[in-house]
C-alpha cells in the first residue's frame, strides 16, 4: 500500500496558565466503578478555526471528539443551542458563570489551525464549578490527513482526565466483512477505526478468511485463510498487505493470537481430527505443543503478562474455559456456570476474562474473574459471539448474528457494566472483530 501511516502526533504542553496544581482530592472525576453512572454534562463548543479553511476541519474534529465522548455513555453533551457564551478566541478568559448557568460540569475549549499539510489542535479542559483547568492545555500537531486520529487523541486525553483511566478512541478494529446470502457468503478482511471510520479491505473475497487479530503494535494481523485450500494461519502486514503462511507444516491451523511481546503466536492445529494448542515462533516458525489430549482444545488467549493462557476445551464433555501456564502442562477449569463456554479472551488489565456463553439455545457475552468467580452476563441474543477488549478494558466488542434464512452478523459494543450496547456501523455485514491497542 502506498503509505505507511506515519502519524507524527506530537503532544506539547502549552505553558499558558501558571500550572494550577490543586490538591488531588478536588479534581473533577467521573467514578467508573460505582454501580450506576450518571452521565457527566459536558460542553464542547466547536473548536475555533484560525481561518476559513481551518474552520471546516475544526468543526469535523469537534464532532469526532463529541462522538467519542458521548458514545461512551459516560458523558451528556450540552447542545450548542443552549450555550450562552460563544467561544471565538481560544485565549479569551472562560466565562464560567455562563457555563455554570447551563449546568455544564466540564467544558472543553479548543482551536484548530491548518497550515500547509499540517494541522495543529490545541485544547483546554475546564472544571466549570471549580472554575479551574483540569490539567494543562495540550497541543497536537500532525498531517491534516490524520485529523480523525488527532481528534481521537484529544478525546482520549479528555476521557483520561475525567475518568482517571486510559482512553481507547485512537485505536483500530480488524474484522471480517461479509456479503451475500447465508449459504454462499463471501468474507474479506477489513480494518477500520474503532468507530467504523476509514474502512479498508485487506483481502478480496476469493478465499474464506476468519478471526483476524492484531499484533501488539497493530502493524500486523494474524488470521485464518482457506487460500491454500484448507484452513491455515497467515500473518499479514496491514500497510503493505504482504502475507505469508505462518507454518507450512501439514495440518489445519486456526484460532491464532499473538503473545503480548509479539514474538509468538498461540493457535490450534488439527491433526487427524484432533485439535490441540501450539505455540509458534513468528520468526522461525518453530512450534511447541502445549496441550495433548484427545479432546478439542482451541481459542487460546495470553494473559497480558505472558505467563498464562486461557483456552477452551471439551475434555470434560462440553465446551468449558481452562487456564494453563504459557508453557503448557496442567490446566484448571475456571468456568463453572450452567451451559457451555467458549472464546475466552484475557482482558488487557489482567483481572478479567471475557467469553461466549451458550445456554438453553441462547448466546451471551460475559465476563468473569480469572479464577472463574464473579461471572457477569452482559448480552443475550440468538447468537452473540467472539468478544474483544477495548485497549483500556472498559468496553467489549463482539458480533451478533440474527436468525433465519436472512440472518446476518453485525458488530456491537457493550460496556463491561452491561450498559451502552451499541451497533457499530460497517459498510457490509461484519463479524469476528478484534481491537488493537491504542496506536502510537
Amino acid at each position, binding site marked *: 500500500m502506498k503509505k505507511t501511516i506515519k502519524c507524527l502526533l506530537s503532544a506539547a504542553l502549552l505553558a499558558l496558565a501558571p500550572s494550577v496544581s490543586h490538591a488531588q482530592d478536588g479534581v473533577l472525576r467521573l467514578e467508573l466503578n460505582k454501580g450506576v453512572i450518571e452521565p457527566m454534562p459536558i460542553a464542547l463548543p466547536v473548536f475555533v478555526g484560525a481561518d476559513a479553511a481551518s474552520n471546516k476541519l475544526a468543526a469535523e474534529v469537534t464532532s469526532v471528539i463529541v462522538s467519542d465522548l458521548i458514545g461512551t455513555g459516560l458523558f451528556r453533551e450540552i447542545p450548542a443551542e443552549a450555550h450562552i457564551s460563544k467561544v471565538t478566541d481560544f485565549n479569551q478568559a472562560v466565562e464560567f458563570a455562563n457555563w455554570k448557568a447551563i449546568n455544564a460540569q466540564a467544558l472543553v475549549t479548543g482551536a484548530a489551525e491548518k497550515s500547509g499539510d499540517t494541522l495543529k489542535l490545541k485544547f483546554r479542559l475546564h472544571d466549570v464549578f471549580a472554575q479551574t483547568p483540569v490539567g494543562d492545555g495540550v497541543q497536537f500537531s500532525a498531517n491534516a490527513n490524520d485529523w480523525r486520529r488527532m481528534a481521537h487523541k484529544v478525546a482520549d486525553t479528555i476521557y483520561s482526565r475525567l475518568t482517571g483511566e486510559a482512553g481507547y478512541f485512537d485505536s483500530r478494529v480488524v474484522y471480517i466483512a461479509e456479503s451475500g446470502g447465508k449459504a454462499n457468503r463471501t468474507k474479506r478482511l477489513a480494518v477500520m477505526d474503532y468507530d467504523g471510520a476509514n474502512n479498508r479491505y485487506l483481502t478480496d473475497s476469493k478465499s474464506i478468511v476468519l478471526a483476524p487479530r492484531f499484533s501488539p503494535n497493530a502493524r500486523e494481523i494474524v488470521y485464518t485463510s482457506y487460500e491454500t485450500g484448507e484452513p491455515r494461519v497467515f500473518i499479514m502486514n496491514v500497510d503493505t498487505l504482504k502475507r505469508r503462511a505462518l507454518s507450512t507444516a501439514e495440518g489445519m491451523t486456526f484460532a491464532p493470537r499473538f503473545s503480548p511481546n509479539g514474538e509468538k503466536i498461540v493457535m490450534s492445529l488439527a491433526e487427524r481430527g484432533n485439535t490441540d494448542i501450539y505455540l509458534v515462533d513468528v520468526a522461525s516458525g518453530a512450534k511447541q505443543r502445549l496441550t495433548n489430549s484427545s479432546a478439542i482444545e482451541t481459542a487460546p488467549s495470553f494473559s497480558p503478562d505472558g505467563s498464562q493462557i486461557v483456552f477452551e476445551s471439551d475434555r470434560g464433555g462440553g465446551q468449558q474455559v481452562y487456564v494453563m501456564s504459557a508453557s503448557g502442562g496442567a490446566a484448571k477449569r475456571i468456568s463453572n456456570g450452567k451451559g457451555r463456554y467458549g472464546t475466552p479472551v484475557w482482558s488487557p488489565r489482567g483481572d478479567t476474562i471475557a467469553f461466549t456463553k451458550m445456554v438453553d439455545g441462547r448466546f451471551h457475552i460475559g465476563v468473569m474473574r480469572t479464577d472463574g468467580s464473579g461471572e457477569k452476563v452482559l448480552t443475550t441474543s440468538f447468537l452473540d459471539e467472539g468478544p474483544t477488549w477495548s485497549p483500556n478494558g472498559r468496553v467489549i466488542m463482539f458480533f451478533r448474528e440474527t436468525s*433465519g434464512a436472512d440472518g446476518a452478523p453485525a458488530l456491537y459494543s457493550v460496556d463491561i457494566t452491561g450498559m451502552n450496547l451499541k451497533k457499530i456501523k460497517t459498510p457490509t455485514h461484519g463479524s469476528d472483530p478484534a481491537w488493537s491497542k491504542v496506536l502510537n
Partner: protein
Amino acid sequence: MKLMKLTLVAVMALGLAACDKDKGAVDEIPVGGSANGQAGNGTGAGGTAGNTGSVSQSSLDASSIEYFKQTIGDRVLFAVDKTSLTAEGAELLDRQAAWLLGNPGVSVLIEGHADEQGTREYNLALGARRASSVANYLVSKGLPDGQVKTITYGKERPIEVCSSESCYAKNRRAVTVVAGGLGS
C-alpha cells in the same frame, strides 16, 4: 457403432432434446460420465446432472460420481456436538467404501461441517473431527490412507439456511467428495 454413441452423447449434452423418444438409447448413456472429474464440493445444493425429467429417468452409470452422490449417498449426518458415526452413517459408509474400493485410483476429500449453533473456532475443530471420523472409518474398511484427505469448514458453509433443527440436522454433516482418476 461406437461413433454413433459418442455423437448421441454430444447431442444429449447440448440440447437434452432427443431423449424422450428412444428410451433404450438413453439408458445406455453415461450421464455425467468420466469427463466430469470436478466433483461438487458438497456445499452446493444439488447434483450436476441437469434439470430435465427425462434425464433423471435414466439410470446412472454405476461408476459415475453422480451415482456415488445420489445412489450411494455422499454424506453422513451427526447429532448435536457429536462426532461419532450413527449406525445409519456407518452403513452408508460401508457402501461408500465398497464403491471406492471398486473404483481404484480415485481420491476423496472428506469435508466436515457444523451447524450454526456453536462458536466459530470450536466448530472448525468439530468439523475436523467429523471429517476424521469418516476418514478413519473408510480407511478401516481398506481404503488406502493416502487417498483420503480431510478438511473442515466449521459453520462456514451451511447448505440449509433456516435456524431450526430441520436445517441444523442437515448442516451437521461430513461429505465425501470424490475427485480425479475415475475408472476407465
